[in-house]
Structure formats: C-alpha cells, structure tokens
C-alpha cells in the first residue's frame, strides 16, 4: 500500500498546449480519491501521467517511497481500469483476469487458480469461460476490476469506470465499487465528470479546471463550501444560486431585490459598497408563503417535482431567478408569490469568483464529516 505524491507535475503537449500546470497533490494511503472536472480540464491527462501512459513534462510522481516519474507503466506497480474496460475480446474472462500474471511469468496452474479465485470473489465464477462480448455491461466492469485486482497492485487507477453503464447499473456499481475499495484498502484514484459520482464514492476529491486544481477536500467540504464560483456551479445536482449583489453598510447584502445578512465568516472582509456574489444552495433556502425577514421574494414560475420535494424557480422583480428546494408539505402553484430565506450558516459570499472567508484556506479543516 502506498500514497501518491505529485510535486509540481506539469504536462505540455507538443505544440505548446499546457494540459497540467505544476500540480501539487497528495493522495493518502488507502484513500478513494476522485478527480472531477468538465471535459478538457486535464483530469484524464493527470491520471494517465500517473499511470505513465503520458510522459510528464516537469515535476515528479511518487508512489510510496519510489519516484516513478521516469518508469514505464509496467514498472509502477499500478493497475488501471479503462472507460471501455479494455477487456481483450479474444480471451475468456479467466484468461483476461490471468493476463497480468502471465506477463509476470506466473505459472499456468497458479495463474488459473488465482484468476478463478478473483473471479469468484467478484461473483463472476460462473462466467469464467465466456468472452467479454457475451457479458453484460456490469459483468464486463467486474471482469475489468478482477483483472486489475489479480496482480495486487499498490494503486488502482480508474478512468470513468461507471460511464459505460446505464443509469440503474451505475447506482449499483457505485455502491459495489465503494465497498470493494474499502475492503481491499488499496489507494485508488478515479476520474469522473459526474459530480454526483464523485461526491458519493470518494473519500476526498479534487475539482479541476483548465489544468489546475481548483479545490481539494472531502465531498462535504467541497459541497458545503466551494472555494470558487466555478466549483460552486459545478458541484451539486441542483446548481447553487449565485446571485450578484452589493454589500451595504449595515451588515447585509442587497441581492435579488431583498436584503440578506452577510455570512459571519465573510463579515470581517466584506467592505460596504463592494460588488459580490451571494451563494446559497437551493437545499439551504427555506420556503415561506408569507412575507418574511431576511428573505428574497418573487413569483413562482416553474415547479419541478423531485419526488420527495420540489424544485421551485422563483423570479424576483429584478429579473434574476432563484431556485429553492421546497419540502412536500408545501405546494406552491406557479404564478403565486413566495419567500425564500437562507440558512445563515450555509450562505457564502464570493468576491472576484473566490470564497470570502476569514479563515482563508481553512475550509479543509472546518466542517466535520457528515
């Protein structure tokens, strides 16, 4: 078992495009770590550089105590699961699982026994003579996992491991993968563009944009206290309300036609008259049918049913729009008036795209795990 340490890791493609900008990052031993970001943010490049499939242009990659920057992928003691699983179509499941052992010159009998045992563990025992083409998507994914496990690497690298599954299978696989990782305790890095996946599975995650790390933290931290408006808008199934406003003299922010209190942690830093962005998740706004203090008000324009709650879009007079998650007790009708008050300890203030917090960069130490 080992941790992964990146030190000023850079990747520049021929032609001058910088895919990674001097990244520093430590993935702890045994951690389930997610690299999250939109297309083209460099997350896959980062994973592939750790794997050795891309050569680093600068900086170092360490796995445990070893500097592996110059090593071939095969010498790094890692295993990788690809987005398309990369199961060899001409080999049976058992041969696929045994392939890494074959490379390591493990004898035929031992190899077969080990492959069968691993297949057994992942519930593939009855399928070991099949070809990948005869397996379902979920089974293929397990076979790929089994192949990665068979050689007992120090590190697992998963490239979008769930994206080729249909929605229902994905939920199942998510739980399965998390449980498996916990049991094996192998340091694992996985890449995903799906924020829900990252939040659900990872112990910690890094949000990337433009080849840089925008925020590293636990899912709770990143969800509750996004370090920038970019992270804020990227994380969360219902995007955070980011409302432009102006700080007044008396400890409030004028936002969407209402006056909301400046969050405590931002108070010492927010100066009167400043342009800021007020961030509040729809889940942290409480709904009211009647006028309330410290709330924004507007006309209900759309009501979307989320099952146990509703996502209500509120349109204040100034033309902005605010989304509120309303519990099932209320049933606001489109066209009626409504009020939404933020939960004080969940409101955030951003200046120039960055979080305003008195304990700057302390976000990582704050909120306890839920």
């Amino acid at each position, binding site marked *: 078992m080992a941790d992964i340490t990146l030190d000023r890791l850079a990747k520049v493609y021929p032609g001058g495009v910088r895919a990674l900008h001097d990244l520093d990052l430590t993935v702890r031993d045994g951690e389930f770590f997610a690299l999250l970001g939109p297309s083209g943010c*460099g997350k896959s490049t980062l994973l592939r550089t750790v794997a050795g*499939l891309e050569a680093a242009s600068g900086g170092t990659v360490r796995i445990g105590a070893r500097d592996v920057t110059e090593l071939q*992928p095969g010498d790094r003691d890692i295993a990788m699961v690809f987005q398309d699983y990369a199961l060899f179509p001409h080999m049976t499941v058992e041969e696929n699982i045994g392939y890494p052992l074959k490379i390591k010159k493990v004898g035929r009998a031992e190899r077969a026994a080990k492959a069968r045992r691993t297949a057994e563990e992942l519930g593939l025992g009855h399928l070991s003579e099949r070809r990948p083409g005869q397996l379902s998507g979920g089974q293929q994914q397990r076979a790929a996992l089994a192949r990665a496990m068979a050689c007992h690497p120090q590190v697992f690298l998963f490239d979008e491991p769930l994206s080729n599954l249909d929605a229902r299978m994905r939920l199942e696989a998510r739980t399965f993968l998390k449980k498996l990782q916990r049991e094996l305790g192998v340091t694992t890095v996985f890449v995903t*563009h799906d924020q829900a996946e990252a939040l659900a599975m990872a112990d910690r995650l890094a949000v990337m944009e433009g080849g840089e790390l925008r925020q590293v933290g636990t899912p709770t931290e990143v969800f509750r206290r996004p370090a920038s408006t970019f992270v804020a808008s990227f994380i969360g199934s219902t995007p955070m309300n980011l409302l432009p406003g102006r700080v007044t003299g008396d400890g409030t922010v004028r936002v969407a036609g209402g006056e909301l209190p400046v969050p405590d942690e931002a108070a010492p830093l927010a100066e009167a008259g400043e342009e800021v962005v007020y961030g509040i998740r729809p889940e942290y706004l409480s709904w009211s049918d009647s006028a309330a203090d410290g709330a924004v008000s507007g006309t209900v324009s759309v009501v979307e049913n989320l099952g146990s709650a509703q996502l209500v879009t509120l349109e204040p007079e100034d033309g902005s729009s605010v989304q509120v998650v309303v519990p099932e007790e209320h049933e606001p009708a489109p066209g009626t008036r409504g009020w939404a008050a933020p939960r004080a300890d969940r409101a955030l203030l951003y200046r120039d795209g960055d979080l305003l917090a008195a304990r700057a960069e302390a976000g990582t130490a704050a909120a306890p795990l839920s």
Partner: protein
Amino acid sequence: MAATTSSAEQAAPAADRGPGNAEGREPERDAAGLGRRRAAAFVAPALVLVALFLVLPAVWTLYLGATDYRLTGIPAIDPSFVGFDNITKALGDESFLHSLRLTLLFVLGSAVIGQAGLGFALAWWMRERSGWLRTTLEALVMLAWILPSSVVAFLWIAFLDRDGGTLNELLRTPGAAWLLDHPMLSIIVYNIWRGSAFSMMLYSAALGNVPASHLETARLAGASGFQQLRDVVFPRIRGHILTNLLLISLWTFNDFTPFLITAGGPDGKTETLPVHIYKTALGSGELGYGAALSFLMLLINLVVAVIYLRLLGQKNRKKKTRTARGRSAEGARGSELEESA
C-alpha cells in the same frame, strides 16, 4: 436520433484526452510505447522490399525512357541517351494516342460506370435482404472476382466463341463473332463482370454506416427512393465513393487481362495502354520507347489520382468545419443538409 447522441456522448470524455484529440480521432497515440526507433525497425523490412522491387524499377523505367535501349541490335549493348525524344515522339504517335483513348473508354465504361454502378446497385439491393437468392448472387459475384485471371480469360473466350459459345447458343445467334465485331464492348462487359465485387463489398460496408434513423427520417418526410439516395445516402458515403472510384480506375487503367482475351486485336481495336506498352517493349523490342510510354502512363495515373484525392480532401475539410461548428446533433444535421443541397 439515437446514433448521433451516443457518438456525441463518446466524443465528450474522449475530448478530455488533451489537444491531440481535439483534431478528431488520434491514431498516432503511441499506446504500446513503441517509440520512434522501434517503429522505424518495424517499418524498415517492408520499406526495403518496396524500395528495391517497386521504387527502383520505377526509377529505372524513368531512366530507360530517356534512352534508345532496344531488345536487339547495337542499342541493346550500348544504349545512348536521347533525353525527351521518346516523350515527344509518343505525344505525336497516333498509335499511342489511339490506345490512350481506348484506355480512357475502358476505364470510364467498365470501371467508373460499370463496376461502380453495378456494385452499388448490388450493395443497395442486398442491404436489407437475406436468404438463398442474396447468398447465391453474392457468391457468384465474388467468385467472378476471386478466380485466377488465366481461367477467367479462357472462360470468356469460350463464352463468346463464334461457333458454339454459350452466348450464341442462348441468343440463337450462331456465328456472331463478338470478339471480332464488338471487341471493346466485349472487354468492357468482361471487366464489369470481373470487378464489380470490389465495389459491391466497399459500398455494402459504406451503406452499413448510414444510420437507419437518417433513412427513416427521410422516409417520414416523404422522400422517394431516389431522393433518399440523393439527400441521405450519397452525402454520407461520398468518401467511400471517391476512394472506390480512385482504386478501380487505377486498377482498370493498368489491367493486363484484356490481352489474355483479345491480345489487343483485332487490328489494335482493344490495344489499351498496358497492352500497347507490352507490344512495343517486348513485341517490337523497343525497350527505351516502351519505358517512356510507361512513364507517361504513370503521369496520367498520377493526374487521375490527384483529382480524386483533391475531391476527397475537400470533403475532409468540410467535415472538419462541421465538427468545429458544433458538437450538437442539431449542428451536424444542419450542415449535412447544406452539403446535400
């Protein structure tokens, strides 16, 4: 449009692979860690053989074409350099120009119109069919393509024979000398028979790539069979059509088998360029002049190839602007219509 959506989905994560991918697919990714030196070692043996037995003879031809080298006589031992004389002579040589015209007719009639047309018709008809009729037809077409040319040549001589040939028996036209009275037509029909299989295979593969949903959309909009072909199918397989035309044109241009059937006769009426060169170089022993003719043939081939490749290049450029213009299915559909308009 299920097909479009799924490919767009695949494109999204793939685009994350760095700038190489931004320019479409990225065949150059050195996935196995080959490295330049090993790659060169992989290519070298093939390249050596090609250089020695293909490029060198071609260059040699070029050199011979500038001499008066002959099979017999003094120039056979000590050929002298004549520069462009052979070329100038050829350009004024009526027999050369005659055989060039015949070759162009042969290519146009048997390859561009015949093989490509019949091949496409066969592929289109077989597209959604199965069963014994389709299997038999496909097998026969392939058989005509796979049989050795010596055998095929003899089969056609027998088929078209004046006395007792199968064709005359069938048409009840005993004594009709097809190879004497219609020699060009005979070898054109022969070559259509011989080569349609390749076009059929290529077009079948191409048609398999036309999403059924596109055809269904056109059909829902009320397009006739011809309109479907024109608006949906052809724009989609344009590249395949051009590649196919390029290959079969070149192959037909350089095909020597008509010689096995008609020997260029009667009276040089089927003396296409390869036959003409063969007769000039080996028949009359004018090796130098024959080589010069070969060189001219090479140039003509080059012109044909460049025309096709340019057309193909235009298409690729269009495709690139299309992908650049927007990944959405909407955008792709828009420009496709534009292209077909």
